């Protein structure tokens, strides 16, 4: 058994856990359990990204998914009730139809994807190879993805940072994360 086969075994184990968590998130009524389970989901997803050797995506997923969004979901939960109302299984039948169609389309498209880890994919032969050969000379750092994000597409990343910052400020104001308004209402 070589390295690629070992990582694939762990990929499948992690994916089974992701599936179990997704089903539990749908089925559970206790909202706190759902918030904690989404945090655990992000941790497993990030471990999976490490196994797919996407270390930078794993760091982002851990920081955003397990760190910030757990806190944001908790803050949102404090504004509502702690329990979800039970809904009947066939109430959202239109969503089920849309999801089944989308899933069938994805499975249809799977046949055209290149083999896992194949060297002659479009990503590995076209502009990707160009970045890989040029990064050591031009940027001189070992991680090609960081070079692409922070240098070759620096303005694009800066725009993303602006958007994420604006969204974060908006959410923080909506959720009243500081709790100051509530305290003044209660005190006077």
């Amino acid at each position, binding site marked *: *058994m070589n*390295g690629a086969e*070992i*990582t694939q075994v*762990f990929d499948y*184990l*992690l994916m089974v*856990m992701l599936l*179990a*968590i997704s089903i*539990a998130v749908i089925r*559970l009524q206790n909202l*706190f*359990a759902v918030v*904690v*389970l989404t*945090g*655990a989901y992000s*941790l*497993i997803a*990030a*471990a999976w990204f*490490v*196994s797919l*050797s996407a*270390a930078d995506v*794993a*760091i982002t997923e*851990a*920081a955003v998914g*397990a*760190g910030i969004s*757990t*806190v944001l979901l*908790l*803050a949102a939960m*404090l504004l509502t009730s702690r329990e979800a109302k039970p809904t009947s299984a066939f109430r959202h039948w239109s969503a089920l139809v849309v999801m089944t169609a989308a899933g069938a389309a994805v499975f249809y498209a799977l046949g055209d994807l290149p083999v896992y880890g194949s060297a002659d994919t479009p990503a590995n032969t076209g502009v990707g190879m160009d970045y890989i050969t040029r990064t050591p000379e031009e940027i001189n750092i070992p991680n090609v993805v960081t070079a692409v994000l922070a240098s070759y597409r620096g303005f694009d990343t800066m725009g993303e940072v602006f958007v994420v910052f604006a969204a974060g400020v908006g959410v923080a104001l909506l959720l009243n*994360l*500081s*709790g*100051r308004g*509530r305290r003044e209402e209660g*005190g006077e």
Partner: protein
Amino acid sequence: MTFSAFVDILVALILTIAMALMLTRLFLGPTLYDRVLAVNAFGTKIVLFLAVFSLAVGRGDGLDIALLYALINFVATIAILKFFSYRSLEVALHDSEPRTARKDAEGR
């Protein structure tokens, strides 16, 4: 396959089983504190899994991410518990004076 690589993979598999057990406690856990404890232990299992996995596969970058996870896991646990005791993140942790006592002091 060398013996140490075999042990690495065996330990990673055992850690995966431990993660599954923590998940069942997360699914079933009757009280809030069961779930907080389970998710904290689950994060620790993920950190250990990443360290063993990066050893088994021979990639060093897993160790850096394992360190980052340990930090995030700690911060997330503190945040969850703080939210449930104070309903806000702006309270300093050393401000452990009970809320009712402070209200009495203001009333006087």
